[in-house]
């Protein structure tokens, strides 16, 4: 039956459609707020801005902490006091803050924890463990020594491993199960890490490997992968090492570390053999798991920071006019 369309019906129909559309649009856009119309005093503005900022920052934090069911990454970073230490740790922490379930183990080369690192870690917002282990004098680099003379950070990394083993022995039940899946990574405080790297290493069964940029006198060093297995390493420097890989180029599963209590870094090892001294206790080249698109992408760079020139500072200090030592740099 044909319906006769009267003007009244047309209007009613139009009204309904408009109403539905308006409701739809409003629902899509959220609530309207009238408060912007009022003139706000400066103080109110500032407190409102601060509140905004806090809300936003908290929101990021909650988003990140929601991911609790992924394996933990324990990052061991040896560090030592020098001018750029705070800067290096600061920008490193900015990267780590983006990685869920990351536990930072900072090991200072010092007889006791320094206030600088203590305060810094407390304010960083990260989950951390603050350790310290002094390198014995004969193994330590002296002032004029070139950086390649003695391997650095071996004692501190061993201290980190010791802490992990202690924690592993004390854990039980669900905690112990979580540790089975965790991964350990050795991150120096002056390198640069992309966020993708941590997702690549998170699921490591034994030892996973990937290319490292700007190391070994080349643009990048990398494991060579054939048929999904690592067959050799593409490096220009000492390719005959048992494992010609940089500290930043591999991650070890915590399970492997806990089941091999004798695996540690040899502080007396020749330069470049530090990594091999540790890995040879744990795996053979066959066991390596290649990551980063079968080791074709560079996700970590072995950057080094220049030592800042302090000529004028030294000159001033001789005159007793040095900058305020209370100001932390």
């Amino acid at each position: 039956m044909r319906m006769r369309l009267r003007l009244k019906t047309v209007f009613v129909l139009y009204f309904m459609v408009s109403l539905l559309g308006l409701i739809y649009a409003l629902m899509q856009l959220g609530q309207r707020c009238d408060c912007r119309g009022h003139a706000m005093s400066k103080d109110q503005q500032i407190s409102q801005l601060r509140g905004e900022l806090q809300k936003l920052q908290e929101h990021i934090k909650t988003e990140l902490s929601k991911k609790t069911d992924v394996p933990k990454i324990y990052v061991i970073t040896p560090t030592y006091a020098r001018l750029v230490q705070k800067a290096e740790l600061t920008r490193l922490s900015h990267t780590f803050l983006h990685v869920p379930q990351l536990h930072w183990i900072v090991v200072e080369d010092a007889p006791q924890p320094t206030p600088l690192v203590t305060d810094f870690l407390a304010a960083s917002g990260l989950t951390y463990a603050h350790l310290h282990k002094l390198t014995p004098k004969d193994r330590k680099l002296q002032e004029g020594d070139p950086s390649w003379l003695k391997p650095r950070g071996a004692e501190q990394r061993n201290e980190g491993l010791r802490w992990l083993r202690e924690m592993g022995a004390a854990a039980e039940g669900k905690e112990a199960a979580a540790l089975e899946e965790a991964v350990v990574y050795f991150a120096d405080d002056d390198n640069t890490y992309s966020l993708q790297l941590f997702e690549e290493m998170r699921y490591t069964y034994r030892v996973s490997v990937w290319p490292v940029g700007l190391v070994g006198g080349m643009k990048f060093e990398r494991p060579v992968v054939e048929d999904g297995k690592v067959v050799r390493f593409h490096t220009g420097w000492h390719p005959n090492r048992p494992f010609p890989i940089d500290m930043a180029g591999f991650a070890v599963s915590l399970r492997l570390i806990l089941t091999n209590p004798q695996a540690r870094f040899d502080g007396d090892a020749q330069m470049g053999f530090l990594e091999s001294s540790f890995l040879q206790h744990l795996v053979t080249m066959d066991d390596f798991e290649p990551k980063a698109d079968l080791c074709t992408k560079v996700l970590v760079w072995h950057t080094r920071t220049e030592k800042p020139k302090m000529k004028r500072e030294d000159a001033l200090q001789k005159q007793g006019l040095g900058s305020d030592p209370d100001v932390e740099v």
Partner: protein
Amino acid sequence: MPKRRDILAIVLIVLPWTLLITVWHQSAIAPLLAIRKVCHHLVKEILIIPERLTIHRQRLADDGTETRHDTGPATDSKEYCSQDKDIVEVVRTEYVYTRPPPWSDVLPTIHVITPTYSRPVQKAELTRLANTFLHVPNLHWILVEDSQRRTPLVTRLLRETGLNYTHLNVETPRNYKLRGDMRDPRIPRGTMQRNLALRWLRETFNSNSSQAGIVYFADDDNTYSLELFEEMRSTRKVSVWPVAFVGGLRYESPKVNAAGKVYGWKTVFDPHRPFAIDMAGFAINLRLILFKPQAYFKLRGVKGGYQESSLLRELVTLNDLEPKAANCTKILVWHTRTEKPVLVNEGKKGFTDPNVEI
């Protein structure tokens, strides 16, 4: 006939609404909705959306044009007038409102201008800089490459970070580039790139707009704390603070008197400069930049260490400076420099696969 009239009437009623809804969905609403979902407690007024849509469409229109040759308009900086033969500017920008870092309508935007150039550590530097910036709310990164064309490395990097960015480029003519890589204080590096960014800001924002903004010059190898960005957000004209590792000292800082006013500079290297401060030690309110459209960094004839003064003296006097970082007693930015990597083992022909990006 009534039947046709009925159909016509129904079509006339329904058409405007379907049009509105489809157009709305096609344009920027989708990312805005994503933002709403994440920051659902933030308030979005219906009035603000159309403004954003117009900005976004303006950017998309810019994207369509290929290149724009700089013809050196008279009202613009005198620096470019005589050199338009040397410069081919591609002012194709991407102004993207993508995912959070959190975006708020209330906080002033911090426009960070970073000049960059291709070298082995470039990707690493930009990566860790991006990791820092991702924590800062309402940050807009203006990255200006010193190159003839926008490089794919930087384009890809910017897209993957998810930051709010604008990608520009301008090549420094050969006679102004540093010879080799040695620091020659007579030739300021990054000047043309910073000037281009200033020009972009002036072209994009007009003085009448209510968008609050702060302009900061951030080099790609320095280290910035997150606190620094919150300190500079409240800048009214130009704010200053100490910078570590510059001028051969642990840190250089402005001298602040008991009244909270800057009266001098605590530096050893030429403390009598009008503004003895490093590029990383100050931030300027966007309104001031727009209010003084002639203010640019001086390109030629600038003595070492006077580059910052060449811009600041056209904007403020010493009296107007606002000291931050607890009256200039805290270090929130470090002028770190990254070592040039030793690539001896690459040899003449290159040992590693050149297709792998580092």
